[in-house]
């Protein structure tokens, strides 16, 4: 194969997966180049994703068989507008956090294993978003889980280790449930490809069981209430960059799989009350997560519970999209939540990480007046908070508005009430921390000087959440490329 053949746009999916993978392997084998490999990947991969996005925008979805082997034994990589958008948000978030992590871990021994695992996580996410068949989704989901767990376990405390163990057990259980669903689907239809399964459409008890198993497994991995118990300890005790990517992207990966399966395979056959049930669990998540966030004593725990609440919003997309007129709006809203939350939540975790780096702790009661000491991080927190609450002008507001619109157009007004209550609760817990940050305290506190890149990465991600509020038409057009809906 000549160089020009290798660098065709159609091979971009393979490169997007391979580059982080190679970086991971090399940084493990040659620890000295680990930071350089990480930063190199952080710069090149987003570029590749941009190219891929452009290709999909112009030419529609791209399909590629790895190594030329045909399905079902070969691996098919499939990229449409939705994949491109997910790859894009992953690249933005992980790329930015890589720069943060460089400063956060400088001189710390843990960073020896951080970079290989980090790149590995990125590779699995990319592979997941590019998978074209349900078994490949299983493999990438497992890889994702394993690297995430290992990253959580990098933090040396006992709490972090048990949180990692709990996360691992839950993750494996979820994957097994999913795999069983895959087995049932294969037994019924004889194919693994998502596209072929869409066309097959056998309506039988095995489909319902397969869906139940897969959905249960994926909901567990997305930490949907009431299976959210593993998330707060894991996200609160992990190192800040890891918490950021866990909340922003890893829980979204299983949600993405659920969306794909729902849209392509299951939707016509599942009882609509299943959608309402998922919505009800989402409602539980919003209320419970927000209340727990209000009660949290530590900042990172508050933010972790906020993730539990925001994941609830994601699952509202199922009942909201069940009415035909509201279908398009609901999906746009749900995905907009995914993107804005990814940016906003990672910004918040990075800001929290900066607080811990500087003051050594994150007990909310003792964090007086820090808006003066680290104005950039607090500004990032404020902007991100605006998106999390759903205030204009931010991506969160657009998402909330789309949801409200979908609920009202579809005649399901009760979701409106829930969304508004969720916003008000979010206001309460964001301001609980934030008002303390503004209060005036003359006491002198020991603080460690913070590298500017850490503060500005958080701000950059928060600004992305803000900018998402203004580019909605472009984003929705991209999502439509290749007709995933």
């Amino acid at each position, binding site marked *: 194969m000549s160089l020009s053949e290798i660098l065709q746009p159609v091979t971009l999916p393979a490169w997007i997966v391979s580059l982080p993978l190679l970086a991971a392997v090399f940084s493990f084998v040659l620890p000295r180049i680990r930071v350089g490999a990480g930063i190199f990947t952080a710069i090149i991969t987003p570029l590749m994703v941009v190219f891929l996005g452009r290709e999909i925008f112009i030419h529609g979805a791209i399909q590629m068989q790895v190594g030329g082997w045909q399905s079902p*034994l070969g691996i098919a990589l499939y990229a449409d507008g939705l994949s491109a958008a997910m790859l894009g948000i992953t690249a933005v978030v992980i790329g930015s956090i890589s720069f943060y992590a460089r400063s956060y871990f400088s001189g710390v021994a843990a960073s020896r294993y951080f970079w290989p695992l980090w790149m590995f996580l990125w590779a699995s996410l990319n592979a997941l978003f590019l998978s074209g068949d349900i*078994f490949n989704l299983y493999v990438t989901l497992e890889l994702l889980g394993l690297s995430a767990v*290992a990253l959580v376990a990098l933090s040396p405390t*006992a709490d972090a280790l048990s949180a990692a*163990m709990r996360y691992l057990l839950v993750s494996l*259980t979820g994957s*097994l449930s999913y795999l069983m669903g895959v*087995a049932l689907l294969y037994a019924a239809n004889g194919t*693994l490809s998502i596209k072929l399964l869409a066309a097959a459409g056998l309506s039988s008890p095995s489909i319902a069981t397969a869906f139940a198993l897969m959905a249960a497994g994926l909901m567990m991995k997305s930490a949907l209430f009431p299976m959210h118990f593993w998330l707060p300890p894991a996200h609160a005790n992990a190192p800040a960059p890891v918490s950021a990517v866990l909340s922003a992207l890893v829980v979204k990966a299983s949600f993405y799989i659920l969306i794909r399966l729902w849209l392509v395979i299951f939707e016509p056959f599942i009882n609509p009350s299943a959608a309402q049930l998922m919505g009800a669990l989402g409602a539980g998540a919003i209320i419970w997560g927000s209340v727990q966030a209000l009660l949290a004593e530590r900042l990172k725990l508050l933010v972790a519970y906020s993730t539990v609440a925001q994941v609830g919003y994601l699952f509202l997309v199922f009942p909201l999209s069940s009415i035909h007129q509201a279908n398009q709006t609901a999906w746009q809203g749900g995905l907009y939540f995914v993107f804005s939350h990814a940016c906003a939540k990672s910004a918040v975790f990075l800001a929290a990480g900066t607080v811990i780096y500087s003051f050594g702790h994150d007990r909310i009661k003792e964090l007086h007046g820090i808006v003066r000491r680290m104005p950039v991080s607090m500004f990032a927190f404020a902007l991100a908070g605006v998106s999390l609450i759903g205030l204009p002008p931010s991506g969160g507001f657009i998402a909330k508005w789309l949801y409200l619109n979908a609920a009202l157009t579809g005649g399901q007004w009760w979701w409106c009430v829930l969304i508004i209550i969720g916003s008000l609760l979010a206001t309460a817990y964001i301001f609980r921390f934030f008002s303390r940050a503004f209060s005036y305290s003359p006491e002198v506190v020991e603080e460690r000087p913070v590298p500017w890149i850490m503060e500005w990465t958080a701000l950059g991600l928060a600004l992305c959440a803000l900018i998402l509020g203004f580019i909605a038409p472009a984003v929705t057009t991209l999502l439509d490329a290749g007709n995933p809906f």
Partner: protein
Amino acid sequence: MTISLLYALVGVVLLGIGLYSLVIYSHLVKKILALNVAGSGVFLFLVATANQTSGPVPDPVPHAMVLTGIVVAVSATALALALACRIHQVTGTTRLTKNEPE
């Protein structure tokens, strides 16, 4: 009943036993073992589906899936055991600490 159906049923039973044990036992190594048993159950089910083809040659796809699955399960088990060892080193117990909010 056919051989495939027997395998499939046993697979499901193993899955059930594995999941049940995962919840019941609090010792970490037992939990890991439980997950392995559950995994084997799923793999057995998959092997059973390979026999559904009309000819004498079984379907290779489920076999490929099982092999991949075994590899993944081995890596996952290795990670889990390493974590369990580390937890024992750091805390002295082999049980997960209570899920405290603080």
